[in-house]
């Protein structure tokens, strides 16, 4: 929190670590991220981003894909995806 947040490298291949899973559950009202002794609700945007964190796609490719899919400016998508992924990584819910 003290230092400025470092940018996510374009060639990083974000992925969910073991122990973190994105699942859909009707009874709980949609998509949730399951983590060690914690459960997070995932909104539609978070789901689109996290689904692409397979460990294969690079950060740059994920941003390109989302920008194309949602016809949105690339730099805005880049900022949104960075913020979400950095937040998840800080909670140990994502590996960069």
């Amino acid at each position: 929190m003290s230092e400025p947040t470092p940018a996510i490298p374009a060639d990083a291949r974000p992925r969910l670590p073991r122990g973190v899973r994105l699942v859909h559950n009707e009874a709980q009202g949609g998509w949730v991220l399951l983590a060690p002794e914690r459960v997070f609700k995932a909104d539609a945007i978070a789901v689109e981003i996290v689904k692409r964190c397979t460990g294969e796609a690079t950060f740059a490719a994920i941003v390109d894909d989302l920008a194309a899919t949602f016809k949105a400016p690339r730099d805005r998508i880049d900022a949104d995806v960075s913020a979400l992924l950095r937040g998840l990584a800080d909670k140990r819910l994502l590996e960069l």
Partner: protein
Amino acid sequence: MAGNTAALHSPLGLLAELTHVCPLGCPYCSNPLELDRRASELDTETWARVFREAAALGVLQVHLSGGEPGARRDLVDIQKAAHAAGLYTNLITSAVGITVETLQKLGAAGLDHVQISIQDSEPESADHIAGYKGAFARKRAFAAAVVELKIPLTVNAVMHRANIDRVDEMVALALALGASRVEIAHAQYYGWALKNRGALMPTAEQVERAAAAVADLRTRHHGEIVIDAVVPDYYARLPKPCVGGWGRRSLNVTPAGKVLPCHAAESIAGLQFWSVRDHSLADIWANSPAFNAFRGTDWMREPCRSCERREIDFGGCRCQAFALTGDARATDPVCHLAPDHDTVAALAAAAIRDDEPYVYRRM
């Protein structure tokens, strides 16, 4: 309770107490004083059914706990059944009385997470608290095996008067072991811990220092390890929202099959619990008298009933209200608005003066 109009939520988590057998004797054990015997334990197939019913009810995570779950010879089959039901499986272990071979099998069968209790950062003190010589060394070895298998690890550190001054060392130990999460969990005074309150209660100064240490450690290790803290509520102004609301988020199945809204619920006299031997989990969740006793807000009296925090902390903890006032419908006396709030500070002060030896948890 008749006429309960509380909305029925889907539970998220199920604590499966597979057995009360445990080699350790921690004086703050969350198991009840009256422990279930081996002969009364549910069999593998019943647990498998419970997990399927839990998943159908909306449960996402199952916590395989005890006692020491490793004391069940069918632990791997039980875990497989939970995994097959689609549940996220979490093993809560003392790391004593469970082998690395079992862990490897669990890992291969899709175990999602392991939580290991560690009693202190000082080996001698840790073994003394656990009432088991050599426990600390075994825990270290087992934690290393968890990390080697790349299964995420949480270290659970129950804090009390004997170890609360070593919050820094506990977090350093968790980091050294490769844990991604550590729980700095102050002892909660029910069951065994209530019996040992005189030996466990920290001083107000210790609690303040520990809180400052946690805040500082969180800043220093941001992104490196998640530090979750459970506050020692005898020194709090606001009560803890017990299990996120009674009968709202979670349920607990005892070794013998009784279903409880929380692990301490049997300490409340007069509640009627249903068993998975006689009812489906869905029936119990919706209709068992114990689950409906304090669900929602209809059961509340003043000052809870009109309180703006009534759906934030739900009147606090029912078990604590009962333990400290004899009335489970009373406002948790930890709350500064409770009529008998002052008695809590007096109890803490009295507990600090009694420096009694531990009454170890034994069958």
